[in-house]
């Protein structure tokens, strides 16, 4: 398991620049006709903004920087830099530069994998950053492709909400992440991109993350009566239905039914009174 290359805001040095040129070289000398098998196009605009040197440099300024290193690079990756994994090499991203420029204190962590840029943000100004990414004339991330979550039970904040953005005009992709603790309510993205409405309902349904300000925070795939959130890592995978399946009466939100094989009345569902007061959850 290789460690992921994490680049914090100011933790930049020459090595990052070096890996960028390495990666360019690997791509350049590869056979052209077969195309990129992984389906990742190289980012087109603004060749290599050296994010390490100064975050505020406009993208087109230093295109000459990687060039001098290029001739020497082909020999170096196997020998000099065994850790330079081309998959985790940093790639230039105009969006990341702009986020760093305007919201430098909001970026927690930046990850690169297979030419994808993933930025983990703090929750406080997330909606502001989303609006900026959507409306900025140079970025225009107007298309929210996907929203999902990942459950990491061992972390202090166990949930990661992941947003996959795409810009139809500039053909760029950008992944954003927010951390969410148990019971914490991250802001809804549905005010910025209406498509997030159903995605967030699905995340709520399968992970139990409620989104603050969401217009309709109800289950979407499971029935409204379902108790539990199946995509959590602690959701039981084995056992008989009566061991863990429960249904909640959504009209009163006070009764929880468990399955009892011996009971014929009510199709085997046995009522147990439980004061939750939560409803629909």
């Amino acid at each position, binding site marked *: 398991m290789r460690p992921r290359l994490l680049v914090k805001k100011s933790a930049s040095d020459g090595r990052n620049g070096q890996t960028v040129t390495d990666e360019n070289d690997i791509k350049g000398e590869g056979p052209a006709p077969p*195309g990129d098998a992984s*389906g990742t196009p190289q980012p087109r605009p603004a060749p290599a903004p050296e994010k390490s040197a100064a975050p505020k440099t406009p993208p087109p300024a230093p295109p000459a920087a990687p060039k001098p290193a290029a001739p020497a690079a082909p020999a170096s990756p196997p020998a000099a830099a065994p850790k330079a994994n081309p998959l985790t090499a940093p790639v230039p991203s105009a969006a990341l530069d702009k986020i760093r420029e305007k919201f430098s204190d909001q970026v927690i962590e930046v990850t690169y994998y297979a030419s994808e840029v993933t930025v983990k943000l703090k929750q406080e100004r997330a909606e502001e950053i989303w609006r900026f990414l959507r409306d900025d004339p140079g970025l225009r991330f107007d*298309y929210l492709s996907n929203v999902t979550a990942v459950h990491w039970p061992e972390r202090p904040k166990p949930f990661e909400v992941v947003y996959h953005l795409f810009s139809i005009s500039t053909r760029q992709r950008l992944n954003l992440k927010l951390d969410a603790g148990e019971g914490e309510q991250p802001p809804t993205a549905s005010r910025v991109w209406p498509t997030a409405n159903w995605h967030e309902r699905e995340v709520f349904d399968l992970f139990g993350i409620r989104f603050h300000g969401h217009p309709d925070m109800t289950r979407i795939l499971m029935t409204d009566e379902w108790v539990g959130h*199946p995509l959590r890592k602690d959701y039981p995978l084995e056992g008989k239905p009566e061991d863990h399946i429960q249904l909640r009466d959504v009209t009163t939100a006070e009764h929880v039914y468990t399955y009892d094989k011996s009971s014929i009345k009510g199709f085997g569902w046995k009522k147990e009174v439980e004061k939750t007061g939560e409803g629909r959850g």
Partner: protein
Amino acid sequence: MFRTEEMDINMGPQHPSTHGVLRLILNLDGEEIADVRPVIGYLHRGVEKLSEHRTYAMIEPLTDRLDYVAAISENLGYCGAVEKLMGLQIPPRAQYIRVILAELQRIASHLLWLGTHALDLGAMTVFFYTFRERELILDLFEQFCGARLTYNSMRIGGLYEDVPAGWTDRVRHFITIFPSREKEYEDLLTVNRIWLGRTQGVGILSAEDAIALGTSGPTLRGSGVDYDVRKAQPYSSYDQFDFDVPVGTKGDTYDRYRIRMEEMRQSCRIIRQALDRLPEGEVRAKVPKYIKPPAGEVYHVVESPRGEQGFYIVHKGGEMPYRMRFRSPSFVNLQALPTMCRGRLIADVVAIIG
């Protein structure tokens, strides 16, 4: 005195026009639709959870079932995502055969759509014509991999095996006869007055709404947005083929119909180019027997017949993904249904779903 009040009525979960199980709660004002609330999840099978406990090779058969009328597109996207995670290069011959298969699948899927869509709107003849041609494609798939619906035809790193002898000639035969067959459907529908009356101006979706609601595929392009993953972010050597992306003007059901018809022609173009330039060589890259990608996460998208199909894999080591997410285009496209239906009649809902 007459009373006027809005009424809720259920359409589905079992309704002949939904082709599957979809429940729509229609909020009616007379016969006009005031609002629609789609209720989904009847076919939720927990594939994402299942994938967390299977090795990468074992997940591929599951992806067949994501969309059982366009299984090859799902196979292609899934294999592409894992290959991206592993940093694999696929042999050019395998890439070209994948493109041929995916485009045949697109035609087959569009044919199924066209037949059932026309059937729902009362044009029964088209259904028999389209299934005649779809059968030819299914025969080609059967000759290639032995299955007719859930193919499991690709492998991580390429294909299971090369195409059988004579298969390319049969594909060439199909794309030679197909344009004249497509003209038969067009003769039945494109200038048919009933068809025009049922589809033109129905279910209009503006370009802004289409983008904001995250729709993709023919639904998005029907609204005039030029976004096709094959062009925008080419995968599996789609950048080496010459084809056009049809774009609509009004965003109504008729535009979406025209776009799918044109896409079938463009698919034929792509298949012809791929057959002409089909490279020789291996069809599978060197892949270890036990696939253990490095830790990382990727989001890979492909253009399935229905739109942008995304695959998000989080891998933290070992043989199984830590988290697998399938972004299905229909789930998102369905979210635009209320916008398209408002102010229309109940009968139009059938045309809009199609």
